[in-house]
């Protein structure tokens, strides 16, 4: 029996993002529930968020973001041989989202699967894509994080309705250009803690998302900065060398707390949550694509990604900015 020939490494070629058109402001939410713009901005740092239209599906958003990343990569649909969609809000258990999205984008017969690690999903999918390229099971991978959380939110519950939102982000992962190229996708540091499974939960198909805010906040502000530092250490990159830190956009106060403890003074810290809300597995690639569009990510420099959320699941890796 033969086995596949491995490759030295994988890298990201391009990002793509998509946000639904509808903007929901804090003032609009204040009319439906007992809250205010000031209260929301102080607690979670969100000024407005995007919500999908009634006829806008998860696959629509995923395909829009994936199409942009594909266009930016310079590759053709036929070059892609694996599609991974990270999501915790699929339209239905079957069919999966990845195969549908691939078909929409004209990607013929790729390997296609969905992956659920909630808000850590994109970092898990990126690690899986990188490993597939390195192992030789795939050559070019389209990785998408997409969520339609609005359909799982109780829009009268001020503890969750102010936080969660819809959107999608994507990246194209390919082999390193040269064997000795130092750029690429660094080692993933990932883990989980099932003891905290009930802290962020959708109990069943008739339930809404429920979160124990204080418990999640305590965990996120104490357990994650060591994970972020370990991802840097394993990539051989000192936090002081990072040009950007893109944590999951959960809550601006969590983001600022982790960034402070990470100690990366040169790094621009993603604050996409301010206008995007918390889009779970979409938040990191969406932030990356928007930062790249604004020219905030120096090409060839190291950036740190950190996903974390329900499960509890978390994952971090250093990437080279395309």
């Amino acid at each position, binding site marked *: 029996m033969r086995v596949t020939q491995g490759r030295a490494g994988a890298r990201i070629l391009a990002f793509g993002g998509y946000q639904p058109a509808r903007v929901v402001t804090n003032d609009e939410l204040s009319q439906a529930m007992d809250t205010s713009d000031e209260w929301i901005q102080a607690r979670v740092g969100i000024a407005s968020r995007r919500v999908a239209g009634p006829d806008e599906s998860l696959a629509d958003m995923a395909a829009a973001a994936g199409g942009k990343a594909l266009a930016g990569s310079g590759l053709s649909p036929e070059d892609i041989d694996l599609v991974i969609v990270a999501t915790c809000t699929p339209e239905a258990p079957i069919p999966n989202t990845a195969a549908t999205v691939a078909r929409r984008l004209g990607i013929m017969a790729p390997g296609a699967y969905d992956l659920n690690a909630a808000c850590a999903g994109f970092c898990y999918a990126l690690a899986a894509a990188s490993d597939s390229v390195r192992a030789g099971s795939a050559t070019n991978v389209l990785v998408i994080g997409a969520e339609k959380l609005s359909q799982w939110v109780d829009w009268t519950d001020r503890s969750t309705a102010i936080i969660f939102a819809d959107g999608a982000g994507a990246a194209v992962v390919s082999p390193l250009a040269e064997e000795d190229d130092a750029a690429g996708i660094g080692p993933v540091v990932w883990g989980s803690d099932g003891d905290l499974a009930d802290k962020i939960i959708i109990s069943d198909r008739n339930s809404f998302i429920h979160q124990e805010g204080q418990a999640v906040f305590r965990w996120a*502000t104490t357990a994650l900065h060591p994970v972020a530092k370990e991802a840097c250490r394993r990539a051989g990159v000192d936090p002081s060398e990072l040009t950007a830190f893109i944590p999951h956009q959960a809550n601006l106060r969590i983001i600022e707390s982790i960034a402070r403890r990470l100690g990366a003074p040169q790094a621009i810290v993603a604050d996409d949550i301010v206008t995007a809300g918390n889009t779970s597995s979409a938040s990191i690639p969406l932030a990356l694509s928007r930062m790249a569009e604004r020219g905030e990510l120096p090409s060839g420099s190291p950036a740190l990604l950190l996903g974390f959320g329900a499960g509890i699941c978390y994952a971090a890796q250093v990437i080279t900015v395309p």
Partner: protein
Amino acid sequence: MAMTEAEILAGLGEIIDEVAGVPADQVTPDKTFVDDLDIDSLSMVEIAVAAQDKFGVEIPDDQLKDLKTVQDVVDYVKRSEVSA
């Protein structure tokens, strides 16, 4: 060695200054966190985490909601130190 009330209060003042930007001299025993010091539930978590580092006393979330005043936290730390 157990800390005196004054030492706990001083340590708590430093924590609250760092977490919430409230000057330590305003952190007096009778002040309530929410109404007097304008400290919200997430900042209370940060204070609890910092207190654990400083005093070696764990304050779980279910206890946190009952600690309304600065004196409540001082008493909690003192009580936990004795029983530890």
